[in-house]
């Protein structure tokens, strides 16, 4: 299943496009990632990821409406394709497999940190 490979940033972008559903275009995707994940995203990185995934067939795009604030330029709306959805599912699945394979001991030392209040509590793996 090599064709479903997704980079970390690509995965985030793909998920965000999915979240935004009908309103996923450059600025909104960028804003969403920035507010949700508290990280700054450069236009360059975002465009690279979008175009690459479009080429892979995870995303499709079409021009939308133009607004004054955009200097009369049209928006390009992105949508997750079926392949894209499959890639997301695949990536989630592989994560799950890995999570469930971790023996409980691995968390012990981090639990100690948490009980001391130094680290925040982790979410439960299968919730």
């Amino acid at each position, binding site marked *: 299943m090599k064709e479903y490979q997704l980079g970390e940033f690509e995965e985030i972008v793909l998920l965000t496009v999915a979240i935004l559903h009908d309103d996923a275009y450059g600025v909104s995707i960028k804003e969403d990632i920035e507010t949700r994940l508290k990280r700054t995203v450069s236009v360059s990185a975002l465009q690279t990821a979008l175009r690459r995934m479009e080429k892979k067939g995870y995303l499709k795009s079409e021009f939308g409406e133009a607004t004054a604030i955009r200097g009369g*330029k049209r*928006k390009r709306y992105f949508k997750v394709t079926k392949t894209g959805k499959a890639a997301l599912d695949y990536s989630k699945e592989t994560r799950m497999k890995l999570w469930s394979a971790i023996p409980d001991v691995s968390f012990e030392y981090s639990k100690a940190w948490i009980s001391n209040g130094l680290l925040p509590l982790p979410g439960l793996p299968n919730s």
Partner: protein
Amino acid sequence: MDKQRPTPPSWSTKFLAWFLKEDYYEDVQGDLEEEFQLKANGSSIIRAKRWYAWQIIRLFKPSMIKELEAQNSIEKETTMFKNYFKIGLRNLWKYKSSTVINVIGLSTGIAAFVLIALFVQDEISYDRHHEHARDIYRVTVKNYTTDGDVSRQWAFASAGHASRLKEDYSEITHATRFYAWAFPDLNYGDQEFLSEQVVFCDPDALEIFSFEFIEGSAETAFPDIYSLVLTRSKAVKIFGTDWQEKGIIGETVTLSRDGNEAPFKITGVMEDMPDQQHFHFDYLAPIRFVEMIMGEDVIKNVGGNYNWLTYIRTSSGADIPNLTKDANDEFWDKYIGQFQSGADARDFYDFEFQPLLDIHLTSNLEGEYETNGSIDQVYIFSVVGLLLLLVACVNYMNIATSHYSRRMKEVGVRKVIGAFKSSLVKQFLSESLLVVVISVPLAIILIILALPYLNDFVGKQLIFNPLIQTDILIGLIVLMIMVSSMAGLYPALFLSKINLVQALKGEQSMNSSKWNFRSFLVTFQYIVTIGLIFAIGVIESQMSFIRNSDPGFDRERMVSLSLPRGDYSNETFRSELLKHPNIEKAAFSSRIPTGRLADNWGSRFFKGDSAIATNFRLPVVTVDKHFLDTYGIDVLAGENFRDGMETNLQQDTVVAGYYIINKAAAQALGFKDPNEIVGKKLGYGPSTGRIVGVMEDFHFESLYSPIVPTLFLTRDRYRRISLKLRPENIRESLDHIESVYAQFDPDTDANYRFVDDLFNEQYQQEERLGSMIKVFAAIAILIGCLGLIGMVGFIIETKLKEIGVRKVLGASSGSIWMIISNRFLILIGIAFVLGLPLAYWFMNDWLENFVYRTSVSVVLIFMPAIVAAILTLLAIAYQTLKATKVNPVECLKDE
């Protein structure tokens, strides 16, 4: 909502449109624009713009850039440029002589320009390193005569000015005085350092100027009056190279003068003051110390006694013209009011606050602390530097356009094949770039070779290393682009507009008798040459004028040396020296002519019983009774110091000393006839004395400054002895001096100097700068001549057929020479008329700087044009002879 919408930087957008895949451009640019608007409304526009540009720069990466195959034009361009360079290189190789001329011209031109730029940059960087440089002013005082003319403007102020100005005007936040308290001796342990330049200043000094502390700090520098801050090199001198390990802070040294001494604690060590500063002090100590020694009367003084170098720092943005006006309106009334004569003091004094940054280049007042640079020099150098560069460029233009007959066919063929005019322009521009690219490395080598000489010449430490100094590197690149476009643009435009049909027919499109842009260029070349030759002539004649002027004292076979240390009677030392038959005369003094008149104790002139402080500076030299005779200075009125005066003085109940003043001093005190002032009472320093004689004026200081009022007095403390030798066997006399010196002071050597050497040294700096200008001007002239020779060569080559025909018809070489020369002589005539007034105006300005100056002679005016004409005629003669020697058949047969 109708507000002007902020727009993102358009160059970024253009750049984006240029490289971004067309398919992506619309929405990506839209996204960027949208977010830019959000950011511009949210935070600052500048930040939004920066963000916008930065995002675009980051988009510039392979996956976003248009496919290279689509960039058809770029590829075509690069191929064409390859071709241009190939053809360019072939042409350079084919016409070696013009290539050599161009490369030599451009590389020397660039090298000289860069060297001059380094010098100019250094000159204009003086005092800029002080943090508050822009808010620092020097307090200078103008003195007016009763007629309301400025008589003197002092670089110094009076003792009482600084504190009162600071108190009265809120704009003045800091004020300090610097006072070099007559060179005390410094003792540390058993070491003794004689006559150290200790400068006393107010604590504010350290807040006005940014002196860099190595040990201690500006805040802890002056805890009490016995504090001493010294420079690194003095620390090394006194405490040795390991002074830093020794921890010299808190060490005690002793300063002594006139038998008094005081212990000083070292409180700080400063970095040596940078070269680019208009004063250099080795020691700083609190001025309160001097004030306490001198007493309140001296410190309160607000009129005259200008010995206190005074600086103020104002609050930033203070209105200085206004401040000056207020100070002049109020200060003199408030603190002096009226003189005893009833005149208002304000009519006689004016403050002028000199911006610190202007001092080095523009200030040349009475008693400048150090010799300043001159803005004129900077101008002259800048002009010469620019001219050098221009001449080199014009050379290139001339030679390149002379080539037109050769390139015409090439241009024609290119046009037929479909070259645009713009691509031809590009071609010729890339050729000039090629020449410049070859010249720059050569120029760099020249600069590196010449810089040590230049440094030696101007006494600076200029550095040139483009690998480390990025500003120099960038400057070089900019210069390269500038020179290649300046030199290449005209030939490019000229050659590219050649008419196609004419070009292919091989017809001469340029009628040689037509006035065109090239005639203008040649005229320009001549203007520069004539102007520079004139400048060299004026500088040379001024220099020799100064060199040959009579300073008014005897300096032939005069030897001077510092006195030996130790206890002895001056008279014994003198008589020991005079035992040698070839030592004719000997005289003691504190300073000798060619030195500086730096000591001033302040003077008061008596009218009847009331003393009035003199309103001019009256420096003092202590001399013995043999001094005037030894130096051959005449006494105009009264008498010289003589034996038996001491007894007279003891009987004299009124005065405590006898003075001789020079004629200038007598005049400054208001006595036209020197005889009338003899016997008058004059207060000088701490005591009151009588003027016993008036001597002839002579140049104690160099001829760059006017003769100032001077006072001589006798006193037992001297620093130097001057010896007049007989012409016979001078070596033996010098040996005698050394051996006598060794008897008195076995530890040090007699460091004697010939006074005429010292005299010449006074002018060394100016002479050096003068010769530097001469060297650069000569380079410019040579480059110009080189270009001229090259151009004449080409013109003649294109006229070979004409010459052939003329010869066949019976013309002589001489008449052909005349025909070609004619045109150039006309150009020289035009250049002479245009260039000389310009050069005259410029050089006259330079001459105005000198107090004693030469006049510009007729020879000097016509010589440049004659030199230019002769050079041209020689160049033409050489080329014509070469051309006329060819058998006419050779050049006529191929048609």
